[in-house]
């Protein structure tokens, strides 16, 4: 066990005029998660510290936050990687509700605009599955992993500059369907993504790829969508 200092940006709209920083000193192992320390503070030091979390092992997407300047899931970030002194802020670019909790609604709204569901014009076989080859399935495998944590979108300077930009996460979601051999909705989605606040706002900065806790090659997916739009308009 080692002493660690957590400097956390606090804000409670029912009493604070503006956010402030607060420091907590906790004992933690190198292999402890940042989330373990946050839970310890919440449960035994200051019950008012507020953050979302659920699965505690990086699959539900609840606890993305900015830890030492990087967007990480608190449950997947260990002290041995992050260091002894840890600064924690809410995700940038989304309105803060309280402490580390941000309003996800603008993010979810972008998500919903890309028609993030399977669209097929051909009826399925009357019995059995639609066929798809192992290779066809592989093309969109990476983007099926997305857990909608928003780490990518809220690390993107283009999104900070303009909240209307649909953002990398929504593009990842669209990619998952555009490249699915069984889906027929690509044209409609490419249309949406080809508009002014779609893929062209991406400046290939790679922050999203670096931020993704699921290891999705986000920038590559965005690039593939861009290419598809260019081909479809030829």
């Amino acid at each position, binding site marked *: 066990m080692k002493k660690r200092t957590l400097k956390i940006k606090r804000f409670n709209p029912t009493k604070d005029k503006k956010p402030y920083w607060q420091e907590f000193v906790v004992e933690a192992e190198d292999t402890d998660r940042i989330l373990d320390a946050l839970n310890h503070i919440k449960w035994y030091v200051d019950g008012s510290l507020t953050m979302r979390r659920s699965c505690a092992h990086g699959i539900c997407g609840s606890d993305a936050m900015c830890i030492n300047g990087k967007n990480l899931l608190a449950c997947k970030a260990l002290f041995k990687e992050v260091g002894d002194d840890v600064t924690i802020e809410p995700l940038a670019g989304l309105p803060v509700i309280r402490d580390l909790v941000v309003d996800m609604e603008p993010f979810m709204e972008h998500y919903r605009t890309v028609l993030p569901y399977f669209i*097929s014009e051909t009826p399925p076989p009357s019995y059995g599955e639609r066929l798809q080859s192992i290779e066809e399935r592989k093309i969109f495998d990476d983007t099926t992993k997305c857990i909608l944590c928003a780490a990518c979108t809220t690390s993107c300077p283009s999104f900070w500059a303009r909240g209307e930009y649909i953002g990398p996460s929504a593009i990842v979601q669209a990619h998952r369907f555009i490249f699915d051999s069984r889906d027929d909705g690509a044209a409609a989605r490419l249309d949406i993504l080809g508009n002014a606040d779609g893929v062209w706002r991406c400046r290939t900065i790679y922050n999203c790829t670096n931020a993704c806790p699921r290891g999705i090659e986000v920038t590559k997916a965005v690039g593939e969508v861009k290419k598809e739009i260019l081909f479809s308009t030829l």
Partner: protein
Amino acid sequence: MAALYTGKEVDTAVISKLYPTRSHTGAAQGGIGAALGNLEEDHWEWHAFDTVKGGDYLSDQDVVEVMCKDAIDIVYELEHMGLPFDRTSEGRISQRRFGGHTNNKTKKAVMRTCNAADRTGHMILQTLYQQCIKNNVNFFDEFQVVDLIFEEGECRGVVAYEILTGELHVFHAKGVMIATGGWGRVWSVTSNALTLTGDLNAILLRNGYPMEDMEFFQFHPTGLHKLGILITEAVRGEGGVLINSEGERFMNRYAPTVKDLASRDVVSRAIYLELQAGKGINGERYVHLDITPETVNHYFKEDDARAVDGKLRSITAEYVQEKLEDISDFCETYLGIEPTKDPIPVHPTAHYAMGGIPTDVDSRVFSDENNTILSGLYSAGECACISVHGANRLGSNSLLDLVVFGKRGGHVMVQEVKEKEFGKIDAQKAIDKVQAEFDAILNSKGQNSPNEIREEMQILMTDKVSVFRTKEGMQESVAKLRKLKERFKSIKVSDTSKCFNLELLEAWEVGCMLDLALVTAKSALARQESRGAHAREDYTERDDANWLKHTIAFLNSDGSITLKYKPVTVTKYKPQKRVY
């Protein structure tokens, strides 16, 4: 799944304390069981037999048959909704081996579990949510249900706490479906999310309605050492083996035919016995799960394990990496090890509630041991007990259970709701009741920490009401839980804010879990036999003469518990001795 069916026909609101995509179904790794027979011969009747045997004959066999038969269509339906299953070389849905699923003729493991890499649950959750968006289902995200409204013996709505604003809302309904998942957080080492606290099960108990078979809680054999994070059975399905400190593959001794792929209760007990015999690795309380190609291929040879084409089975590091991507990621992130090179340290972890809200085959809730239907209320998923899983659930049968019975429940709700008028409710009274409960917590002058109480409960339950149980241990648990409940009456919550007051809600959840823990311990204490996940050191055998029956537990208003029983439905499969 239910909302998808009701949403197309009648006004539907989905109320969830989490964003729906944060639900713990997203954590399910291995897959969903259905006898498609895509890779080798299989039949739904075999699936049904395996489920009944896995459940140690406590499953109601009529509903098991429905589930296993419906399984095939429902998996195709999910595929038609776009679910990205892995594929076979013919382009069909890929299937893998899982514990307890067998070819009933050869008794060997059969490839029945349909999978999408090792994130099948994630894909199911995403696909169903996507379809709900497509069909404009209404979502109330981050609204926590804190009470059900009953009038004239009928459920007529819910009271929900809006997490953002702290406001209480009444949802007046003709039908309510409960699908709130498990309560693994009653134990200290668990594969379950922090939010799996069994709120609605506790609410039902407090309103005088019973829980079925609560003593049957599954401990999954392979949780990551200390953390409890699940390492899917698919690791063993792909060939992984359990090894003790002597380098021995000990499952040979406990389940000579299917070995590491015996059902979960059997494997968890085997690990406990190895640990008790001092055969934990480095003298500690864990064993190794080895999926390194070297070890796996060695045992394939020893077992003469053949693939469908008749060739000797073998795996490569790349194959493991591809099929078990998330598992590799967990091991690397949390333990700094690579499963293709190093064995994984594991021990049993609290995993799945077989028991829960008693329901019929169309997810209608029963209000007593005589199967009287509680009008207006439905339940499906882990919180419900139909009971298909009996005393021990087979892997990949839960995802199946929740889609099959979610759909059936959804269908029936539509029919029943369409024929009905709104019943009268007193909304103010419903709100006042909950407000009083919360005020009592907020205004309490007590000094007890709800978090300390939760921790003590979790450690107690892990020590005394887990893989092996004794009369003394359970008696002690009941007594201690009663004391914890007393202490809970004077807790302290520091946060009085209306905005995102998770401290208040979490304290309230501790109260829910205490009730569930108590009912679990009491039901377990009463059952004087060993069956499935309920293994007693003082009654080591299954006792069909006296105990082939379901427990129906009521929580009385004075805090005492009344236990009643109802018979198990047996159709084709007569109880036999269970060997793997």
